[in-house]
């Protein structure tokens, strides 16, 4: 892909995304905003996934962020915008502290622990009495930007851009080398001088921070948080399926998956009152079995195949002393 295209395509997409509120009615706009929320969550999930650790706890940090933002506004009269940042910070700090314990775990032990985390947070909040509003939850006196639909949408879009930026930092810097090395083989990574715990922690905190911010945005957009609503496993399931379908270990992948599945989700919700989530389960199963690298991964593979076809031409490789046998 030429340099020009690589800049042009994202620019066009972002421009289009910014302009959506001007061309859509209230319902499509709400759907689009919902897609953006899940898109940001999908990106945040992928960031940690790159280290080889699967988190089933997106809803946990999302919920913490929502409650942190709500409490900040209700108890300290913080400005809504600042409370969103605070939400991210709280989630990040919680992740940092928890990380010392749970980042020792690997694979399924880590994943099940994250699965349990959302439930733990929910129970703690639910039993938090008057402070957290108990089972009924918290209600904000007013919505951010007075609930103006366009503003809420752009706020979600800004969050997605933030998540993209973080994701790209992780893809372009030495973080990518560290996380990929850790994911593939920890012993080998160690022998390259990589401090595994440090990089896992960075990924975990970044991922959780984003999830907290997104939770804060959700809260400010709806003005309401209850244990059952914000810790709903929906917020874990959808981003996971989206990132998988779109293509894990990338930035464009979760974006693509979110658009596809996010729009489909709205349609399904209308057609199938109960159990429309079954589609997500089936998609996850099918993607893992048939297309684990996702749509973007397939695209990347094809690009690479085309590139290496060009490399096999004689003269492209410098002659080495030894005989080169294609194993």
């Amino acid at each position: 892909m030429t340099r020009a295209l690589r800049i042009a395509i994202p620019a066009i997409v972002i421009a289009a995304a910014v302009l959506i509120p001007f061309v859509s009615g209230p319902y499509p706009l709400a759907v689009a905003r919902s897609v953006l929320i899940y898109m940001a969550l999908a990106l945040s999930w992928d960031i940690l996934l790159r280290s080889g650790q699967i988190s089933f706890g997106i809803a946990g940090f999302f919920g913490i962020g929502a409650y942190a933002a709500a409490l900040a506004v209700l108890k300290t009269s913080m400005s809504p915008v600042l409370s969103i940042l605070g939400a991210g910070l709280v989630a990040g700090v919680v992740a940092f502290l928890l990380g010392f314990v749970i980042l020792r775990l690997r694979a399924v032990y880590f994943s099940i622990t994250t699965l349990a985390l959302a439930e733990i947070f929910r129970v703690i909040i639910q039993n938090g009495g008057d402070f957290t509003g108990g089972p009924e939850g918290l209600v904000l006196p007013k919505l951010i930007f007075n609930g103006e639909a366009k503003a809420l949408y752009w706020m979600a879009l800004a969050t997605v851009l933030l998540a993209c930026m973080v994701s790209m930092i992780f893809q372009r810097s030495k973080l990518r080398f560290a996380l990929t090395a850790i994911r593939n083989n920890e012993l080998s990574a160690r022998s390259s001088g990589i401090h595994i715990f440090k990089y896992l922690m960075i990924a975990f905190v970044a991922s959780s921070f984003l999830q907290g911010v997104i939770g804060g945005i959700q809260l400010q957009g709806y003005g309401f948080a209850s244990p059952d609503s914000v810790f709903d496993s929906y917020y874990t399931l959808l981003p996971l399926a989206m990132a998988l379908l779109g293509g894990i270990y990338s930035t464009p992948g979760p974006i693509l998956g979110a658009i596809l599945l996010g729009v489909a989700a709205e349609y399904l919700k209308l057609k199938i009152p109960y159990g429309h989530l079954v589609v997500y389960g089936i998609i996850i199963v099918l993607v893992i079995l048939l297309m684990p690298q996702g749509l973007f991964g397939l695209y990347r593979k094809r690009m690479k195949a085309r590139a290496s076809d060009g490399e096999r031409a004689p003269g492209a490789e410098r002659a080495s002393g030894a005989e080169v046998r294609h194993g």
Partner: protein
Amino acid sequence: MTGPSLEKDSIVTDVSRSRLRRSLLWGTLGAVVVVALLLWKPTALIYGVQRAGLYAAVAIPMALVLGIVHIVNLAHGEFMMVAAYLAYFAARLLGLDPFIALVPVAVVMAVFGLVVYLLTIKHTLKAPELNQLILTFGLGIALSQTVNLMFTSQSWKLSLNYVTASATVGDLSFGVFDFVYAGVAIILAVGLKLFLTRTRFGKAALAVGQNPRGAAIVGINVDRTYAIVFALAVGLVGAVGSVFLTKQAIFPLVGGPYTMKSFCLVAMAGVGNIVGVLFCSLALGLSESIINSIRGYAGWSNIVFFAIIIGTILVRSFRERKA
């Protein structure tokens, strides 16, 4: 031959000595707790044991899969849930008592488990572990949401007259039916232990669990072993599901917490330690019931398992540091 190190003679005694010491410690602690409960809050003890039985019964089939096929089936609880629904229809439509429906339900579930395994899980065995985890996660969602789709999220319950059976000891009156779970758990544990150590297939399965490549070399069909063990485990958890139906309410998401707790129990006991699962379940059941009985804190009992598993992890990782 150069003299082997003197330590080699003490391999057996060294390991078993420390294990014995540890078991004694936990045993005495457990005995103290049991006696204390007996005196202070006997209902908590009874309830705890009954709960423990249920957890153990669900966890033991997972121990089988984890120990031999080495995969974590995040859809484990959902298989139990499906079985419970099957038993429900057997009761409602065919008038079969769940204890009678247990066998056909278990058989159906075993076949179902085999099909699921052959279609999906089998293909991820060679892939990175990440794939299996996500796959079974997706399976669980697919199962629970399909049930949701077909039967809505309403919870259903049978009202069997024998589940209210109770006994009175002194001035203490308690339900006795729930001990059936403990009974099922013990039958499962003993049955599996015998199966794995006395039958030809069982021994082969153990071998596959310990060393798949070595087992293949001596002629054991590893693929077939995995498939049968998985199907067996699903059949067993299906049987548990049928028993589950007798007294519990069922709804599409009922299986989720049991998957988590089963995994925690199996992890705590150590992979392959079926008897250990019984004791760990006891610890979990008693802890939950103690918290439950403390006024005002009942809501926290559901996350006791989390505290226990975190504790186990910390202790294990500190022990590893010293090594």
